[in-house]
């Protein structure tokens, strides 16, 4: 009999939480043959990622995953063998009581946000003893073998390499998105939160020596783009040109298509957690817009990743990379930083692929979760 897994996702804002849990649920089903229920408290957010879903349904099957509406008035269900509360969301009290009362023990996991900070390894996999006799285990995704790893589907890199090696596949994909590739242009994708530094970057791209094609999936960064461009409100499909810079607004696309967009581009600006990881699997240089926190707590997390990521780059390339990421996340002089980064472009490109391969040598998050369950049994 297949092990049953329940994944609970409370959508805080944006699509990061549901993006990660939906991806994880699909992988557990497809690669590990598990019976997975994904409980989502905001079905409309889920439909954004899975357009064929119906937000009005309390239960539906999508790609082998039973997707359930996590309603405020919780109806009792039999808990699964493994229960994941994603990003420390609060499970329904009735459900926790049912877990405690279940004849067969339940593995309860709190899947945390991704961080490269040192303390993660020391806390990964530790139990949290509860007053009801249950233990909840903290599971931390991460970049080292002492952490829970990163979400990466089996065969992802093989698919990616085949796609990147096939110029026709790339052009076909872009055309299906309505994008006409600009000959000789550096192709950049831009997915970010609102960012006051954007205008300064675009100014440099527009005035630069090389043509740049900037693809912007619908999202929060559009307001910053609109501020810089001026004129009528941007709509999906709109194109604009400023000097060497060709801009196109894309629709919000499902995860598999977004992967291909990242694989198609020479440089990817990403945000949050899910797109940040996917950009690393694209093996191309990237720029991370980290989720901003009070008291600049996010900058420590940013620097922890940079300290790790920049290893192996020459000193000049390290300085350029760190300066660019800091400028993007702290409203700094990103135009100058971009110009500096371009000086080490071949090295940054090789490094992105090396980084990807090194991370891919570790167990992926889904595999690590399944292994954790088997060890726990």
């Amino acid at each position, binding site marked *: 009999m297949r092990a049953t897994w329940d994944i609970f996702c409370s959508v805080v804002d944006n699509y990061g939480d549901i993006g990660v849990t939906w991806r994880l649920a699909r992988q557990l089903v497809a690669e590990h043959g598990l019976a997975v229920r994904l409980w989502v408290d905001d079905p409309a957010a889920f439909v954004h990622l899975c357009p064929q879903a119906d937000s009005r349904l309390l239960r539906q099957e999508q790609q082998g995953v039973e997707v359930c509406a996590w309603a405020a008035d919780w109806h009792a269900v039999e808990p699964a063998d493994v229960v994941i509360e994603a*990003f*420390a969301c609060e499970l329904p009290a009735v459900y926790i009581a049912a877990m405690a009362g279940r004849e067969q023990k339940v593995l309860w996991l709190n899947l*945390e*946000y991704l*961080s490269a*900070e040192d*303390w993660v390894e*020391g*806390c990964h996999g*530790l*139990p*949290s*003893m*509860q*007053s*009801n*006799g249950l233990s909840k285990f*903290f599971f931390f995704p991460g970049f080292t073998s002492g952490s829970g790893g990163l979400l990466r589907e089996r065969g992802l890199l093989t698919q990616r390499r085949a796609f990147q090696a096939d110029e026709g596949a790339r052009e076909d994909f872009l055309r299906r998105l309505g994008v006409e590739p600009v000959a000789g242009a550096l192709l950049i994708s831009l997915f970010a939160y609102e960012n006051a530094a954007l205008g300064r970057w675009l100014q440099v791209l527009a005035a630069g020596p090389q043509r740049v094609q900037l693809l912007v999936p619908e999202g929060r960064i559009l307001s910053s783009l609109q501020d810089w461009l001026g004129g009528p409100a941007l709509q999906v499909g709109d194109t604009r040109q400023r000097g060497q810079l060709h801009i196109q607004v894309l629709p919000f696309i499902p995860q598999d298509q977004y992967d291909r967009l990242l694989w198609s581009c020479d440089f990817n600006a990403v945000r949050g957690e899910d797109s940040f990881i996917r950009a690393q699997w694209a093996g191309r240089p990237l720029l991370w817009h*980290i*989720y901003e*926190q009070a008291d600049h*707590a*996010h900058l*420590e*997390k940013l620097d922890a990743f940079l300290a790790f990521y920049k290893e192996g780059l020459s000193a000049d390339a390290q300085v350029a990379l760190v300066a660019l990421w800091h400028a993007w996340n702290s409203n700094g002089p990103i135009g100058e930083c971009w110009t500096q980064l371009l000086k080490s472009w071949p090295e940054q490109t090789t490094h992105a692929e090396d980084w990807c391969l090194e991370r891919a040598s570790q167990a992926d998050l889904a595999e690590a979760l399944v292994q954790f369950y088997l060890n726990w049994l």
Partner: protein
Amino acid sequence: MKTAQEMKPNSVALIDGQPWLIQKAEFTKSGRNSAIVKMKLKNLLSGSSTETVYKADDKLEPVILDRVDVTYSYYSEPNYVFMDNEFNQYELNKDDLESVMPYIVDGMTDVCEAVFFEGKVVSVDLPTTIVRQITYTEGSARGDTSGKVMKPAKLSNGTEVKVADFCNIDDWIEIDTRTGEYKSRAKAPV
């Protein structure tokens, strides 16, 4: 009930009917991750130890403990012996004293608190502020007098503390035992 963040080392929480002594507690908050407290716990009934982690706002049930003033007397392998003012002696090993071990030095005169659970001593608490002598530190690198520039220094038992750049060997300093942080220079204890 107290939050996990409020539970300090050398306090005891009742978890699922079992008394657990908190030997060590480290608070961490970063980015979007929930603030967490990593703890080293010792079961006071079975003697087993475990590491655990709680969200900082998780609720734990504290156990009210008896406390008696004691001072450190001597080390008798493998135990550290403390004495109260009626000359009763209490022996604790290194594991029992994990959170205060960095500050245990021969000849210390701090009035500590022995912590009892069901009549048995389980740990010792130090005062919030203690005074210790620096036995080694490098000279001042920049001549800083503000106290904001810090450098490493060693105490007589080998514990390393970050101190103000202007501190020297043989100086006495105040240390906050809750955080392990240097507070200021101090006069030698009488």
